[in-house]
């Protein structure tokens, strides 16, 4: 049996395999060091970074739902300075792709964070998180509007020295138009989806279960919708698409690739199994071997209609 080539060339970044850990589900990466050698995975996206430290949303922040999880963490984090000072030097030791997840209260802040991160070594790309439902009133975000998306990406491009992946929100009528706006604004890649705006109620108290009332739904429950969106976007854009949303198994990951994803991200699955990324990579390799596929990247977009 010949060795399967798992590597993926996204143009702006080469990955040793197509599996990245998703932002907000892999901490700053170091949390997973006790479980496996981080160099084994394609890379990871660190927790969302605002310029300043943030306390995040009031608890409770999690609700388990049927095959899903709602979170309203609200991007609690240490801010970009502490990240570059304390965390990044440790990540720079790793031989895997490190992507920072860039957040902002308004367009200006995205640009400031992106500019600041560009001054340090250790990062391979920036993921623009214009799609977090846990920050603004009513869960609104720039990725819900093609024009706001274009403006934000454009502004960041002007100051960023690193390649940009724009992360889209599924809470839209027409995901393709937002993806096209990001592409036109110069984004080097697209990742989708972020979480679905959701809610849970505690019947006994008649109160929302989340301290923040609304939160974002992730996990296997959303996979069929995320897969549909990845397929639609991959057909429309020319830049590489990174697919995510409910990926728990190697089969899930492979389906996203067949739908058009060049790479995938694994989110909620890391919580249930800290070795999830590793197992998914192993499973993909095994599948490729069994199916006589020498270069895994060949299957991207191979859906037969």
């Amino acid at each position, binding site marked *: 049996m010949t060795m399967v080539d798992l590597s993926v060339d996204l143009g702006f970044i080469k990955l040793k395999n197509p599996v990245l850990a998703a932002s*907000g*589900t*892999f*901490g700053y990466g170091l*949390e*997973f060091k*006790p*479980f496996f050698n981080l160099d084994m995975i394609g890379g990871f996206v660190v*927790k969302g970074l605002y310029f300043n430290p943030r*306390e*995040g949303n*009031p*608890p*409770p*922040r*999690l*609700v*388990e*739902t*049927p*095959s*899903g*999880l709602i*979170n309203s*963490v609200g991007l*609690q984090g240490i801010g970009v300075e502490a990240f570059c000072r304390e965390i990044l030097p440790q990540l720079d030791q790793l031989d895997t792709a490190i992507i920072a997840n860039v957040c902002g209260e308004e367009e200006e802040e995205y640009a400031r964070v992106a500019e600041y991160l560009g001054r340090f070594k250790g990062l391979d790309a920036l993921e623009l998180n214009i799609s977090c439902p846990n920050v603004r009133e009513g869960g609104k975000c720039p990725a819900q509007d093609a024009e706001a998306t274009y403006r934000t990406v454009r502004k960041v491009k002007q100051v960023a020295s690193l390649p940009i992946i724009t992360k889209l929100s599924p809470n839209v009528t027409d995901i393709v138009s937002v993806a096209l706006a990001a592409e036109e604004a110069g984004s080097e890649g697209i990742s989708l989806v972020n979480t679905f705006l959701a809610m849970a109620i505690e019947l006994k108290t008649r109160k929302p279960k989340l301290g923040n009332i609304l939160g974002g739904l992730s*996990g*296997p*429950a959303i996979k069929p919708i995320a897969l549909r969106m990845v397929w639609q976007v991959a057909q429309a854009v020319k830049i590489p698409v990174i697919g995510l949303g409910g990926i*728990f198994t190697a089969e899930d990951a492979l389906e996203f690739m067949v739908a058009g994803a060049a790479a995938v991200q694994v989110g*909620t699955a*890391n*919580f*249930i*199994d*800290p*070795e999830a990324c590793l197992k998914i990579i192993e499973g993909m390799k095994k599948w490729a071997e069994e199916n006589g596929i020498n270069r895994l990247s060949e299957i991207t977009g191979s859906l037969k209609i």
Partner: protein
Amino acid sequence: MIIDRQARIVEKKNWGRYFLFRLKSPEIARSSQPGQFLMIKVSETTSPLLRRPLSLHYRSNQEVEIFFQATGMGTELLSKKKAGETLDILGPLGRGFSLNKEFKGKEVFCVGGGRGIAPLFFLAKELQLLGARPTIFYGGKTSGDLPLRSKLEEAGLEIKISTDDGSTGFRGLVTSLVENELQSQKPAFVYACGPEAMMKKLSEICLKNELSAEFSLESIMGCGIGACWGCVRPFRKNGEIHYLKVCQDGPVFHSREIVWMGE
């Protein structure tokens, strides 16, 4: 942190809604401290999705024990597992109770309400090894909520029992039992685990009596390993209030740090 995907259920005990599993898991047993917990997979499907946090009830050389109450879908499913089957467990996790060598020869109180007794058996046994003199205050709604009574007695632990309905032991809240006891003796330290309201009341009693205390808190956990920021609660640190992770910074916290619910 170890993932043991094949922790065999060596023994299963059951009293009403309460269950005790003894699991063979040498590596986890070896590195466990009282107050630490496990994250346990309860389903092979995606529903329920998350692992469930359960305290280490005891550990021996090769084995660990969990003691839990079936309250919802997850613990319900777990309770249906049979001896001989295996569990996928992750642990030991979190920061446990602090075991101070100076407690040697001294009286300490361990206060448990309902299933909150779970971590206190392991704790009391370690305190005994240290040469401290633990007294366990074990409270329940009714006599059926005190299934571990004989186990504690047989282990030679000093125990005091209360039930809300007086069906056995002191009639009233376990915190009142503690208050009574404080009339005659002041312990060197208080450890507790139980319902939020019980622990809040106990922390007030400790404050009034100038007692140091540690509490094992509960919180809904996404990961148990510090990766999701989902389990936070507010805590007092250096005069400010911050959100800390119960799974990593706790689950055991000193009473002076804790901001009780509804405060």
